[in-house]
């Protein structure tokens, strides 16, 4: 089978069924046995009127990054789709409504901005839908029908996922929708009979049932539920809101509760309160909300109370770019807040890791009695991937709480110093262990004490504990690493996929390039990172931020300067940009 690497976008206005159509493409292609990485974007704060775009990259091999050029554009609203024209590859396929309800001026037309090489497929989306179902609401499905016909996709894949999607709404709705799809499919087969392609050949092995199509947000929500989350506290903010919405829907049936709080301060306050009282809880926010939380996060550090905080990063500073992706909260996550407040910061790089890291974050928080910050970003939260995905067993999500021994009853020291720095923690209700958790500097017993000896001792204890946590934190993973590399690329978070793709491509071009994935951002495995830097003649750190926040964090580990590649376009880093930089560096190396 020829290698497939095809990107399709659906663009329309909210209400056009854009996101649904994109979702169906992802599902159908997954069902067909392809790898899919999808990413939807829409201006959430004006969702009722705004432009929606879904982007799906479909491949016969694993897909780890977003497609850079679009090979097919399905326009459900031409005025909105104009903005997608610059992203079209040469000779892409453009599907549009050839019979819109009203005449459009050239300034609003999609076709007027297309380069001449694109192939246009005009179909009366609405009319076909009306013919099939009596209503034009199925326009998005007739469009999908056209897409399936022209790209040579097995229509049964779409029929199946359409059935699944509408199953809950009854047989009638299912049939209407399948009919709409079929109407578009038949129309395109006939109308474009001399222009049909075969983009998606049938994959004989078919669908791998272990593969599940999931968004980062869904994976996070599922992880929280599988971890036995009891309470979710949050305040709406893009792009974290879908996590709250997911849990609001599913947590109650698992015995948990979602409380929408009055702000982010109260959200983290309540999370600390619940963990203090022994229940797993979490909050998810984005940069502006995270900033509000920092005082209480350091309270968790000082009073040694667990907390799980997910920071779904967006463009900043301040309100910034609410619907754009960025990795610029790293400094805030690691350093934000008053005092020497070391805490644990981890960052998944793909959907599957979102799931496992969130589960792990509860355990780390419990064992190390400190806030654990999980850093994701708009791109990671909203992308969907279909990868083999195995849910954690109850045992894998088990509590890591460290309770005091009964022997210490009535002479309990809440902040007792131990070799690891971990002090067994009692929960309210346990007889004979009453204590006050405090954010004031305190003695081992927990009484406020500002003496210099005590502050020095307890600061050391808390930091020793965080360093000790390294043994439970995932080590950096090496890709294509040999004893000496011309360029070593270090990546984190949502950008790592682009790093990997770029490195793979450079290697195919015959270059000695390797990659290092860092998921534990604080504390971090300095020895492993150092070793990687040492065997790389040049070290490149691509990041979605202006300041080079990871580079700043690790640059001191090696004497040679770290090369930075910083993007603040609000969009994921294109693999080709990293590859170009790698190859530029190679010229310098050579």
């Amino acid at each position, binding site marked *: 089978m020829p290698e497939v690497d095809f990107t399709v976008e659906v663009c329309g206005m909210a209400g056009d069924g854009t996101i649904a159509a994109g979702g169906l493409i992802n599902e159908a292609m997954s069902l067909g046995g392809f790898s899919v990485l999808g990413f939807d974007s829409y201006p959430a704060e004006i969702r009722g009127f705004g432009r929606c775009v879904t982007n799906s990259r479909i491949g016969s091999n694993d897909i780890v990054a977003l497609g850079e050029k679009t090979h097919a554009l399905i326009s459900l609203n031409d005025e909105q789709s104009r903005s997608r024209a610059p992203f079209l590859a040469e000779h892409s396929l453009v599907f549009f409504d050839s019979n819109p309800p009203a005449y459009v001026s050239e300034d609003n037309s999609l076709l007027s901005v297309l380069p001449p090489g694109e192939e246009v497929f005009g179909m009366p989306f609405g009319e076909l839908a009306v013919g099939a179902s009596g209503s034009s609401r199925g326009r998005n499905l007739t469009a999908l029908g056209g897409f399936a016909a022209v790209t040579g996709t097995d229509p049964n894949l779409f029929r199946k996922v359409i059935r699944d999607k509408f199953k809950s709404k009854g047989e009638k709705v299912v049939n209407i929708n399948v009919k709409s799809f079929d109407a578009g499919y038949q129309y395109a087969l006939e109308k474009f009979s001399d222009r049909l392609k075969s983009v998606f050949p049938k994959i004989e092995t078919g669908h791998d049932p272990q593969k599940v199509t999931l968004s980062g947000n869904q994976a996070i929500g599922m992880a929280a539920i599988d971890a036995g989350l009891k309470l979710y506290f949050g305040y709406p903010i893009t792009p974290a809101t879908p996590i709250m919405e997911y849990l609001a829907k599913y947590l109650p049936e698992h015995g948990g509760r979602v409380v929408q709080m009055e702000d982010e301060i109260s959200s983290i306050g*309540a999370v600390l*309160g619940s963990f203090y009282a022994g229940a797993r809880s979490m909050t998810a926010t984005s940069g502006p909300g995270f900033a509000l939380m920092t005082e209480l996060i350091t309270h968790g550090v000082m009073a040694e109370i667990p907390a799980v905080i997910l920071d779904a990063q967006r463009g900043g500073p301040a309100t910034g770019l609410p619907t754009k992706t960025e990795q610029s909260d790293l400094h805030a996550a690691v350093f934000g807040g008053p005092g020497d407040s070391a805490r644990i910061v981890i960052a998944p790089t793909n959907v599957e890791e979102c799931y496992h890291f969130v589960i792990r974050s509860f355990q780390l928080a419990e064992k190390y009695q400190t806030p654990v910050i999980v850093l994701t970003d708009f791109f990671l939260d909203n992308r969907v991937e279909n990868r083999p995905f195995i849910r954690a067993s109850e045992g894998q999500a088990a509590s890591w709480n460290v309770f005091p021994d009964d022997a210490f009853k009535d002479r309990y020291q809440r902040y007792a110093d131990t070799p690891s720095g971990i002090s067994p923690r009692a929960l309210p209700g346990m007889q004979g262990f*009453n204590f006050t958790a405090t954010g004031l500097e305190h003695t081992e017993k927990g009484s406020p004490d500002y003496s210099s000896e005590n502050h020095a001792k307890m600061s050391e204890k808390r930091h020793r504990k965080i360093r000790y946590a390294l043994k439970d934190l995932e080590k950096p993973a090496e890709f294509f690493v040999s004893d000496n590399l011309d360029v070593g690329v270090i990546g984190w978070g949502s950008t790592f996929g682009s790093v990997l793709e770029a490195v793979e491509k450079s290697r195919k071009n015959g270059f000695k390039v390797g990659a290092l994935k860092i998921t534990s951002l604080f504390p971090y495995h300095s020895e492993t990172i150092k070793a990687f830097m040492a065997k790389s003649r040049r070290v490149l750190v691509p990041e979605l931020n202006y300041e080079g926040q990871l580079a700043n964090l690790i640059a001191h580990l090696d004497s040679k300067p770290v090369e930075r590649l910083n993007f603040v376009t609000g969009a994921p880093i294109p693999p080709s940009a990293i590859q170009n930089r790698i190859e530029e560096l190679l010229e310098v190396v050579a």
Partner: protein
Amino acid sequence: MKTPARILADQVNRIQKSGRFSPRSASLPTWCPGCGYFGIHQGLNDCISRLGLPLAEIVTVSGIGCAGRYPFFSNTYGLHTVHGRALPAATGVKLANPNLTVFAVGGDGDGLAIGGGHLPHIARRNIDVNYLLFDNSIYGLTKGQPSPSSPIGTKTKASPYGTVDKPLNATLMALSYGASFVARLFAGDPKGITEALIEGVRNPGFSFFHIYTTCVTFDKNFKTWTHLKEWTHALSQDYNPNDLRRAFNEVLNDDFSLGVIFKRDI
């Protein structure tokens, strides 16, 4: 020879001395001598003793301020949070383990200024937390700045020409926010505090205790012991706390009547 009664009496004595069942912690309060908070401490401790609540099943949550230190002086579980955030933390504690009895305590700066945004929400969510607002109309811990409940004209180092902003009325606010139990009390009357607390703890929702108190160190003019004793007085005999309109009237007409102002019929 020891009679069984004698042995029992000795045991009781020893236990009492050990403080294991006393709500008072071993560390003595660090408040200034004469501070109104001692009276509140007594009122709350008596409530706990009289209700016979196991100390390990009580959590006292506070923010920052002289009042915020409270948990250290209590033998319950304590959660001393940051400035203004006692109520969110208390919400988390209560929802995490509904078997716990939760007290939130804090000053007027803590609860009406920096944390003022939380009061309406815990009230409307009706979380079963008992919140004691220690209203001395001053920032005690930071050494005497005006607070949101200081009367117009309050002179402090931070307001040498007198304050110009209108004070907040915490009782009125709690009523407006829909708190299901509202009492107005006075630190000089620990018995009254105990009585109201016992009633409030039994209220299965959010209970608000607005406690007039004094900062002997930084307020020599306004909410002094003398003034408070002179101004405060009990609610009238025929007062019916189940009538919200009446409660509003009472609070609008009289700033200093004490007792259970409102109690939602269940």
